[in-house]
């Protein structure tokens, strides 16, 4: 492998893969480095919902809409390979107050370009025949889609043509006398490049520290419960209204709200828990129980279905729940593309395209100010 290139991307997760794809398409020579295998981080430990429905109007929603459009474009050629399904999302409310909150959210989202259709209580079961009776109503979001994240990361990397160096740990960021980034040091030698992209996900703070800059990325643990394979009984991505509130919440305590989706392979995936417990990998039965209880409230048939396993992952979150995307003024040549919390699969394509634009000196499609990596420097460490 030649040891120089135009850009080194650290991290072969979904975000690194998307950065590699768009940077290569922009004509750049790219090397992707990961200490583990492709998708061995959070990308291989989450789910693959591409959602606009759960995002409040603002910069994250704009990034989600850009990303959704790019996912559809990619899916034209590659969709079958990574199980892309434009299935749409259904958000349900158990009571009138929740429904009113969803209604307000949908109004704001529509103004930002989201399609959201109100669904009356008696029509919910036309969309989802196995839903519990007695729900107050809901909303259908046709732009919500799904991919299989590991396959998506692998195929985006493959078609990018970028060189991949897996099983190689970045141990330092090289900087010249002028402070500019010159590449990375790894456990298997240096890689020289005038630009380095930090796509290290939950470990993005550590990578930033190697370059001498602070980026407070922290882990937010999530469990997923996996059922035995079933015939298609859950057609859309279905979740309860309280999920939106949990996603936006700042609480460190355990939160669970039911999120249910079928997969191309047959198993139903049940999420989503959120806890801030560091990198604790121990199994937590109470969390998984709460997930199962929430899911059976939405879909009573699940109570007769066998859960075959559970897994967990660590969402990379930043204090204001927005990712860090763009150049770091404190370390010229360093760009960040990390901290996407529970939406890094969905937001990967837009992130990759924004990064590629910056790398090739073009104006990015969105204003990067809200994602500026330096925005946390004022706070106490």
């Amino acid at each position, binding site marked *: 492998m030649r040891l120089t290139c135009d850009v080194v991307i650290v991290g072969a997760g979904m975000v690194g893969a998307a950065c590699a794809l768009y940077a290569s398409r922009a004509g750049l020579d790219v090397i992707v480095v990961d200490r583990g295998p492709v998708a061995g981080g959070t990308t291989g430990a989450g789910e693959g919902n591409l959602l606009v429905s759960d995002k409040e109007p603002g910069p994250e929603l704009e990034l989600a809409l850009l990303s959704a459009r790019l996912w559809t474009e990619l899916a034209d050629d590659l969709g079958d390979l990574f199980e892309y399904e434009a299935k749409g999302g259904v958000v349900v409310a158990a009571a009138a107050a929740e429904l009113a909150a969803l209604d307000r959210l949908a109004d704001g989202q529509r103004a930002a370009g989201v399609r959201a259709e109100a669904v009356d209580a008696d029509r919910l079961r036309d969309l989802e025949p196995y839903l519990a009776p007695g729900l107050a109503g809901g909303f259908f979001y046709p732009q919500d889609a799904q991919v299989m994240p590991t396959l998506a990361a692998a195929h985006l990397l493959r078609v990018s043509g970028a060189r991949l160096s897996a099983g190689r740990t970045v141990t330092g960021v090289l900087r010249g006398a002028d402070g500019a980034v010159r590449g990375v040091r790894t456990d298997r030698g240096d890689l020289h490049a005038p630009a380095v992209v930090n796509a290290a996900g939950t470990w993005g703070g550590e990578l930033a520290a190697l370059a001498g800059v602070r980026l407070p990325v922290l882990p937010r643990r999530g469990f997923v419960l996996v059922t035995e*394979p079933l015939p298609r009984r859950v057609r859309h991505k279905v979740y309860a209204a309280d999920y939106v509130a949990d996603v936006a919440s700042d609480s460190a305590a355990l939160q669970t709200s039911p999120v249910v989706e079928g997969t191309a392979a*047959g198993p139903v995936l049940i999420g989503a828990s959120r806890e801030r417990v560091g990198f604790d990998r121990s199994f937590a039965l109470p969390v998984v129980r709460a997930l199962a209880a929430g899911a059976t409230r939405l879909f009573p048939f699940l109570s007769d279905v066998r859960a*075959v396993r559970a897994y967990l992952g660590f969402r990379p979150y930043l204090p204001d729940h927005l990712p860090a995307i763009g150049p770091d003024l404190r370390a010229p040549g360093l760009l960040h593309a990390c901290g996407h919390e529970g939406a890094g699969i969905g937001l990967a394509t837009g992130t990759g395209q924004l990064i590629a634009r910056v790398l090739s000196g073009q104006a990015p499609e969105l204003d990067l100010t809200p994602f500026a990596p330096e925005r946390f420097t004022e706070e106490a460490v």
Partner: protein
Amino acid sequence: MNPLEWAGARPGPAFAVTFDGREIEALPGQTVAAALWAAGVRSWRTTRGEGRPRGVLCGIGVCFDCLVTVNDRPNQRACLVPLRPGDAIRTQEGTGHHD
């Protein structure tokens, strides 16, 4: 040589279970997979996508390749589930659920 002899095992008396209606013999403590193997059966499931035959792969409950229907309950791991007298094992097709 019979593996029971290697291990010096002295299981209790054999009992009968059925596989797709045919009677086969099982020993106390034996798993579904072990009894099927002893009866010369190596595959008892077809895959959901292409209908390919499947049986034991890992043998220790990790891979979920050995799924089988026992007493009308699909998707049980043959390599883990111990047999009881009279159990009805059935070949599982696809998800094992009918809709």
